[in-house]
């Protein structure tokens, strides 16, 4: 059982602040590090993995500093985001080399390859592997010494749905065994399916932390904005504003559309088609205008 502690950590590159005064603890089980691209997730994971020094603050594993301390790698397994591996090796040679660097051997390598179900392709050159296969061999190389902490940077990027499911299953198993598993993702659904605990990072700040349901509620309860075009915008606007699920409507004359702010997401999505039908108005366009993750996240930061 191991716990990572990030204590008032900031990291800047020149004038750019990538991580801004973040404090969090990551314990046993699966934790998702969620945030939009460029939020500082990789910077944070790199600091937890000992590949980057914090500009201020400390990153420790069970009290030991991680930066400039090679001995922590006996407990940490790292699955980097970058694709580059030793492509000229076969999968087996690569995992065996990783085992040897830990002072272990072929037996442990074989066990790790079995864990990720890559034995069938272990004698092929890594250069011939698909993205999902590479990801699994990277996993095997990180698991070879049976680490108590596993750090994965965007592990699901570029994986097909089946590979994604397999990896999720594997990570879930690792978490259930009492390992500390931390993975980063910018995709809400991935985190939702896998992580019991979530840390949200937005623009380098620690925006939210906790149980998934709490964060999900924060996300769905936020005001939603829609852009709607119809055969009779003004009549539709008048009918919608009468319902409490709608907080405000702008008639955008230039665009020839309505900009609607809904406060009750579930009720509004049901209301809109019903009202249109009742008034014989044809809906031409209904598009959510702020579904981007960035807006979801910025809402979370404000919350």
């Amino acid at each position, binding site marked *: 059982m191991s716990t990572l502690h990030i204590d008032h950590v900031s990291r800047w590159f020149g004038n750019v602040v990538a991580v801004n005064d973040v404090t969090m603890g990551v314990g046993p089980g699966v934790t998702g590090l969620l945030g939009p691209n460029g939020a500082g997730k990789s910077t944070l994971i790199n600091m937890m*993995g000992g*590949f980057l*020094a914090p500009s201020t603050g400390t990153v420790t594993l069970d009290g030991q500093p991680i930066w400039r301390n*090679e001995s922590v790698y006996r407990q940490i397994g790292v699955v*980097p985001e970058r694709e*580059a591996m*030793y492509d*000229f090796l076969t999968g087996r040679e690569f995992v065996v080399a990783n085992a040897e660097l830990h*002072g272990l051997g072929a037996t442990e390598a074989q066990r790790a390859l079995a864990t990720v179900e890559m034995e069938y392709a272990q004698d092929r050159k890594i250069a011939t592997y698909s993205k999902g296969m590479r990801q699994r061999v990277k996993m095997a190389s990180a698991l070879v010494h049976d680490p108590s902490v596993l750090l994965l940077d965007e592990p699901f990027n570029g994986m097909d749905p089946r590979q994604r499911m397999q990896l999720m299953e594997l990570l879930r198993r690792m978490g259930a065994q009492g390992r500390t598993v931390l993975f980063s993702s910018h995709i809400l659904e991935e985190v939702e399916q896998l992580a019991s605990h979530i840390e949200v990072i937005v623009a380098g700040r620690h925006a939210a932390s906790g149980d998934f349901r709490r964060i999900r509620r924060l996300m769905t309860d936020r005001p939603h904005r829609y852009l709607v075009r119809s055969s009779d915008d003004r009549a539709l606007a008048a009918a919608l504003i009468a319902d409490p699920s709608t907080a405000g409507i702008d008639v955008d004359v230039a665009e020839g559309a309505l900009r609607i702010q809904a406060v009750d997401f579930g009720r509004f999505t049901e209301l809109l088609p019903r009202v249109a039908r009742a008034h014989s108005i044809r809906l031409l366009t209904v598009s959510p205008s702020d579904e981007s993750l960035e807006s979801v996240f910025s809402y979370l930061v404000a919350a």
Partner: protein
Amino acid sequence: MYNPTVARLTYRALLGRRRAAILFVLPALLLLIAAAVRGFNGADDQIAADVLGGFALATMTPLIGVIAGTGAIGPEIDDGSIVYLLAKPVKRPTIIFTKLIVAIAVTMVFSAVPTFLAGLILNGNGQQVAVAYTVAALVASIAYSALFLLLGTVSRHAVVIGLVYALVWEALFGSLIEGAKTLSVQQWALAVAEKGSGEGLVASDVGLPVAVVLLAGVTVAATWYAGQKLRTLTLAGDE
């Protein structure tokens, strides 16, 4: 200090890359030149010394050193795969030391061995010319490997900087301009080789004690510094 797994990965990366073709092309060119010169001029001690000094030691050895020294670590840092070495309970200076040994071995094999063979072809090792230049190439291999390994650790443009150093400094200034000669690996190596050769065929502008101190100093300092740089190597993400 020496890690066989790191060595194996380094060898395979170094010899498996396309750039490695130069490791074979340059020695082949040297042997070809040697055979041609011998064919046209017959055996001549002075010409043998000119070819070995002008091409083998001044051009080929530093170029091989650039390929082997920077290639032993640079590409891994560039593409990020070094993370698989760094995320291990292996001392960073051990990684550097092992890579240095590999770079030295590769540079020696691809520069000293062909130098010796070319010397045999040129004048059958008359006046010990072949042996002298082989010794120079062996000595230079060590210092070049350490210098270029450091370069590969600290700079993403290691190959370009290395080539400029090898071709402009060593091959041009190092043999033409007086002041530059004192700061030339080539001259230090020649100083060591001078001892064993016939009169006047191998000459260095640097005295032997100075040369030995500089060779050892540069090798040790470059290796130590590369180890320190690797300890604090930052693998910035794409952010």
